[in-house]
Each structure stands twice: as structure tokens, then as C-alpha cells.
């Protein structure tokens, strides 16, 4: 494993690989190494790029090196009464760079945006081994193309982020979970839609198969109290609401947000129009498990079948399914991401080549890596 100590070192490693025609896999904490197809390439660990570069809480801006552990970043901002609003989550060892590169977002995503929405700027090394800067270190900027959007969620396929500038926001002073019970996924979607479309400013909404619907109300104490008082009226007809104790609510939120408790040898992360979620659940085979977040916009599915039926069902409903957990043979066969239309795939391939003309970061982990030539032709 290659372990650069700083951005210059990293640039040298990438330039060397480009010159020699070698391929490199960029790795943060390695917590998501099981995502995508099995592959055997040299790994560059970014964990040596560690530490905070600049943090001024009143500016709402944090600049940090990519290999800094996510837990360290979260503790730092929490110490100032702030948060990463996209609610990133990950296993022990996950880094901030890896988290953003994977586009991770939690339950609050439905109202606060994703990693892409909070990545303001970056310093990165392209597949040419060139250091480039994109975006900026202020919260409001439209100067030049928004390359940070491309880098967030790109899984290290365009370049190696060395330093990230993130928008941070005040942590809500108080958080209350209101819960209700419904009798079907359709009723869960309806209740969540009513809550998220109401003036109660619900910041997250999730549902579990036992009929539990979770609604999060966060903010200053007088506001939270008033909104919690208003919610039962706003959701009249959907079910009886009650406040759930934090100790009871936390594991349920966790389950809905991560899908981590689902059994089955195969796990799908389905993103779809929320109203399509009940239809997808109805299409699942006997024994499949699910949890719902983002008001129905995200569905985790745990299943034993190693076919692509879930993906086909998601596509038919205007959504898409990514394969997050599967036996090696299935990962070798089934692409991690749902294929897009041919024209979009070709455009993506050209954009990828704009950053990485020598395919240094095309490790074979993603079907998109292999298709670049045929699509661009």
C-alpha cells in the first residue's frame, strides 16, 4: 500500500502511475472496500493526509485534509455547537474524504442536502498527476464550474481529493422524535409526505416494516415545543402521534438510515421518488426485509436472491438501486450502480477522461471504468 504524507507526495505517486500506465485505487479508511467489483490494483491510502487546515465556526466553513477520520471531524464541529448537516455516517475508521467521495448522507438529507451540497471547495490531484483547486472557501460562490459537485460521490474515479472545504451549520439545540403507527407502507409514505409538506418543519422522516413512522423535529426549544404541539393536528387522519424517548428512538433511526440490521446476503440501496416506495415494497419477494428513510425516497432492501429483480423494479418506478452488499461472485457480475441511458454513460465517460485520460483511477471496481472506451468511440 502506498502512503503519501502530503498532497505533493500524492501528486508524485499519481504522476508516476500515469507515466507507467499503472492503476491506483484511492482509499480512505477502507470501510467501503467491499463496494463494487472485486479487483486487484495498487492501493493508495490517504490516511496520512490528516488534520484540520482551518476552522472558523462563525464563517460556517471547515477546511480539512482528506484522510482525517470522520469521527474526529464530527467531534471537532460538535465541540463548537455545529454539525455536518448532511448527517454522514460510516463504520469506525471512515475518513471525511472517503465519506464525501462516496456521497454518504443520512436521514437529514431529505431537508438539508447531501455531501454534494456541503462540499464548497477542494484541492485534488487529477489522473494527470496535476494538483488543481476548485470551488472556494466561502459559503457562497459561483466562480467557474462547480467541480466539487462532480467530485462528491465520484468514488475516487476522477481524482484524489487532498483537502476539502465543507460548509458546517449550527447543531440544533433540541431534537425530538415524534412517532406514529400505520398499517401499510402506503400509509407510511402518506404520513411522511404530510409531515414533510407541513409547516412543522420536520427535518427527517423514516419508516420501519412494523408500521413505526419516525418524524424528527429539531431546533430551538420554544420552536420545537410549538411544532410538536402542532404536528398531531397537521397529521390528523394519519395516526396518533407521541413523543418517543431518545434512547428508544436512536436505534430505530439508525436502522432506517443505514439498513445495517437487515438480514440477507444481498443488500440494495434504492433511491426513488418517495411515492414509488410502497410499490417497490409490494414487488419484493417473500422474506425480503426493508427500511425506509428520506420520507420514502430511500429504501434499503435486504434479500437472499442474487438476481437483479430489485434493480429492474426500481427502474420501472423511476428510481435506481445500487448494490451495497453481495457475495463476491455477484459483485463481479452485477454493476454497483444502475446503468444510466447510453448517452449519459458516454457523457460521464468523457467527463471522467477529462480528469483521468490515462485511466489511472479506472480500477475495474465499476462497470463504468470498463465501458469508457466503447462508449466514447
Amino acid at each position, binding site marked *: 500500500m502506498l502512503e503519501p504524507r502530503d498532497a505533493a507526495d500524492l501528486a508524485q505517486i499519481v504522476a508516476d502511475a500515469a507515466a507507467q500506465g499503472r492503476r491506483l485505487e484511492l482509499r480512505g479508511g477502507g470501510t467501503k472496500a467491499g463496494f463494487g467489483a472485486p479487483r486487484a490494483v495498487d492501493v493508495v491510502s490517504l490516511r496520512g493526509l490528516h488534520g484540520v487546515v482551518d476552522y472558523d465556526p462563525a464563517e460556517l466553513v471547515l477546511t480539512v485534509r482528506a484522510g482525517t477520520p470522520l469521527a474526529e471531524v464530527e467531534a471537532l464541529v460538535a465541540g463548537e455547537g455545529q454539525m455536518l448537516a448532511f448527517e454522514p455516517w460510516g463504520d469506525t475508521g471512515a475518513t471525511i474524504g472517503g465519506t464525501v467521495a462516496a456521497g454518504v448522507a443520512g436521514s437529514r438529507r431529505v431537508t438539508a442536502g447531501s455531501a454534494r451540497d456541503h462540499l464548497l471547495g477542494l484541492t485534488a490531484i487529477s489522473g494527470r498527476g496535476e494538483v488543481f483547486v476548485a470551488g472556494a472557501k466561502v459559503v457562497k460562490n459561483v466562480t467557474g464550474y462547480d467541480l466539487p459537485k*462532480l467530485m462528491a460521490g465520484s468514488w475516487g474515479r476522477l481524482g484524489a481529493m487532498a483537502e476539502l472545504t465543507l460548509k458546517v451549520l*449550527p447543531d440544533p439545540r433540541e431534537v425530538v422524535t415524534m412517532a406514529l403507527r400505520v398499517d401499510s407502507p402506503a400509509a407510511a409514505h402518506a404520513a411522511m409526505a404530510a409531515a414533510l409538506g407541513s*409547516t412543522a418543519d420536520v427535518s427527517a422522516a423514516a419508516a420501519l416494516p412494523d408500521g413505526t413512522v419516525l418524524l424528527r423535529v429539531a431546533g430551538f426549544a*420554544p420552536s420545537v415545543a410549538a411544532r410538536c404541539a402542532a404536528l398531531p393536528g397537521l397529521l390528523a387522519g394519519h395516526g396518533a402521534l407521541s413523543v418517543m424517548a431518545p434512547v428508544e428512538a436512536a436505534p430505530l433511526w439508525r436502522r432506517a438510515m443505514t439498513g445495517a440490521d437487515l438480514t440477507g446476503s444481498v443488500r440494495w440501496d434504492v433511491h426513488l421518488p418517495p411515492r414509488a416506495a410502497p410499490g417497490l415494497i409490494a414487488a419484493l419477494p417473500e422474506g425480503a426485509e426493508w427500511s425506509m428513510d428520506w420520507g420514502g425516497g430511500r429504501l434499503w432492501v435486504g434479500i437472499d436472491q442474487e438476481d437483479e429483480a430489485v434493480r429492474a423494479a426500481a427502474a420501472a418506478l423511476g428510481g435506481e438501486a445500487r448494490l451495497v452488499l453481495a457475495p463476491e461472485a455477484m459483485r463481479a457480475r452485477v454493476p454497483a450502480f444502475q446503468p444510466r441511458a447510453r448517452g449519459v454513460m458516454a457523457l460521464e465517460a468523457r467527463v471522467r477522461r477529462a480528469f483521468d485520460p490515462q485511466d489511472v483511477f479506472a480500477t475495474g471496481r465499476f462497470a463504468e471504468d470498463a465501458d469508457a472506451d466503447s462508449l466514447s468511440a
Partner: protein
Amino acid sequence: MTIAMPVPDAETLAKRERIAQALRSIVPGEGVIDAPEALRPWESDGLTAYRQPPLLVVLPETTAQVSAVLAWCHAESVKVVPRGAGTSLSGGALPLADAVLLGLGKFKRVLEIDYEDRVAVVQPGVTNLAITQAVEGRGFYYAPDPSSQIACTIGGNVAENSGGVHCLKYGLTTNNVLGAEIVLMDGEIVRLGGRHLDPGGLDLLGVVVGSEGLLGVVTEVTVRILPKPETARAVLVGFPDAEQAGACVAQVIAEGIIPAGMEMMDRPAIHAAEAFVQVGYPLDVGALLIVEVDGPAAECDFLIGEIARIAGANGAVTSRVSDNEAERMAFWAGRKAAFPAVGRISPDYLCMDGTIPRRRLPDVLRRMEELSAEYGLRVANVFHAGDGNLHPLILYDANVPGELDKAEAFGADILRLCVAVGGVLTGEHGVGIEKRDLMPEMFSEADLKQQQRVKCAFDPELLLNPGKVFPVLHRCAELGRMHVHHGALPHPELPRF
């Protein structure tokens, strides 16, 4: 007039008749405008110091027509400048003498509204405000609200990544768009994103938003709509100087409050606005803050109290809280009239748009005063204080020979100053032609080349909106070259572990 546009291509100018004929066969009827006098209304956008009649104007009505127009122009190597409502303040839609101006004004339909999933699908020519008007009956609205929202279109908002006074809390266009249909320069139609969150694959929509019409032509947009906040209240606070006002802003945020809007005006802007609209702004203060909060009534009441307390602790000399909607609107009336108000006290003005780290505000204002004295030009400042986005208005008279050049030089110095203190050239108006030549102040050649390589992935012949954003046009073949000496490693002795 220091900004030069690319030299028009003589061959294209010579075949103007044939181009008009070909485009008429794609967009029949009144869809092609080529009479010289009829081109006059199209010769500039919101950056009115620059004017150039286009080669001709085409106004398609369907995506298929947009695609056919672009495909024909691509095959004939004819440049195309896309245009929404033409309200850009940076010259993003400035026509070129040898380019077809492609207007999306006929795409005016709201296609679908889904209140349960809180999305609206609209055509690009729908105005920003019309989206809100289409959904407000059911208690929803579209959050980004640029000041030109009655005129500017959502397609233009996507191209420019438009903001507004509420964007600290609600984000820019990019944070409120889920999907788009775009047509590439070669006529290919692609759909990016959809009606769901965080699609897989590269976030192409993310880079199209804010690309200033250089990557593709937007023909359909899916936006998120939000429940309209139950209520809104504002507080109007006067401070002896901008430093104290800035300290107040910092403390509001440090105490965990993200107001819906937080605007600052300096003394010249306060006086100009008050003289224009007479809303009762205090005239004996150095800086005025308007802080607005929205949400449930209980939250607004609580936050207004907190903000008034913080303002007092930071030396506020006047403080008024809006008691009703009319009063809140009056607080805003002066701020919203700031540009025309300045237009009354000066024949012409230039509006700058840098963003700075807020902590540097006192230094920046001080230096701006010095520059004002050096150039002999007055400047008034309005400021989106919450996010550090400055709008210095430079007052000048275009009828005085050389004064526009002087004003532009002053503006460039202000933007250099913004970058020097860690900020950016443009917070919301876009680069366009206005800040094009200043891009190297903020980005290295390597940074700019990386951006241009993305352009090449979308439009390798550089036919779409050329002359905008990038100061130097590199041919894509040149940008594609790799400068590596195969096998010759620069430091073979270094351990790699």
C-alpha cells in the same frame, strides 16, 4: 469597454442568409428573427454596458427543435449563445456577431406538480416567481429568489446557479434542482438526475448548474418545492459602523441562528434608499442590518428576541421589530430598491458581486474607501451579510469620457481584493464576460485547464457560448495532451511505501 470578444468568423457572417433559411425550416413561422431592426431588443442582457446584435435569433418551441437547431449549427460550425430572460448581470447572454442567439422564451409551461413528493417539473422559460405562483395555492413555494425573480427564468437560474437573499438558509439553485433535460451542442438530448435524491454515477447535473450556458441547453427542469413558512418577521438594526454590524452578524451565527435573510447596507446605500422610498431608515447610522427569520410563529418570536439581544450587545443604536406584514415589507422596500435608488443619484453604476470571509469585512470596507478616493468615484455597499456576499455599487457617468474604464478598473481592484482576503470573484451573478479576465486572480492555469477539459467533454468544438467565463480559449486537442515522459520517473530514489 475593456473586455474583448472573439473576432467574428467571416465565413459565418457571409452565410447568414443560408443559416436563416435552414433554421426557418426547423422552426417555422415567426421563430426566426433576422431583420436588423428586430435584432436590436436582443443586443444585450442585464450588463447593458455591452451591446452586440446577434447574427440572428431563433425561438424554438420544442426540445426536438432545440436539438435540430443545435445539430445543424454543430454540423455547420456555427456558434450558439443560449438565452433565458436576459437578466444576467455578468453578460452571460451577451450575443456574438457570428452566433445564433437561442432564446428559450417559448418554453413557458409548468408540466407537472407533485405536492406529495414536493417536486415541480417545468419548462426552462417559466419565470422563477411563476413556479411559486403555480404552487402557492397549496401552501408551497420555490425557495431561491433572485431579485429579478419576476423576470428571470428557471432555465437561466440553472445556467447561472442563481441565489437570492434567502440562500444562506435555503441554498442556491443547485441545492433545489433534482433533474434536468439538456441538449448538447451536437443535438443529443440527455436527461440528468430525475425525481429522486442522489442518483448514482457522476453528478453531471451538478456541473451543468452554474455552467453559464457553456455545457448544454436546458429544456426541462425538475425542482423541489417547499412548504411555505407559517410566518416571517424582520428586525431593522442600526449601528455606528460596519464593524459592529459585522460583529453582530458573526454572533448571531455563532449562537446557532441561521436567519432566512441577513442584509447590510452602508451609509451611502442607506441614504440613497431612504431618499428614494422613504421607509423610515435611520440616517445617522453607519450601517444598517435587516435580519429576517421565518418559520412557525413561536420560533420567529423567540429568534427575534434573541437577535435584538445580540444586536444590543454589539452596540446597536436603533432597533425596530416588524409587528405586521406591512411593516416587514417596508423594511425590505429600501433594500430592494437599493439599486434603482443608486441609479437616481448617479447616471450609471456598476454592481460588483464578490464574496469574502465575513471576518475580513472591516478591512475590505476600509480598503474600498481608499480605492474610492484614489479613483475619484463614489461607492455604495449592499451586502448579503449572512454569507459574505458583497455588492459594491460603483457610481460613474458613462457620458464622461474614460469614466466607464475607470469604474471597471475600480471594480476589478475590488474583486482582486476579495480574492486576496480569501474570497471569490462572484457569489451569485456569474463570471460571464464581466469577470472573465479576472479568473486567473482566483485560479491557476492548471485549475482553469481542468475546468476547460470538462467543457471539452460536453462541447469539444467550443461552439456553445464561446468567449464567456474563460479568459483564454484553448483548443480541446491541446488540452488533451499529456506531458509525461514515459517511464522516466522524477525521483526514482525516493522510497514509496
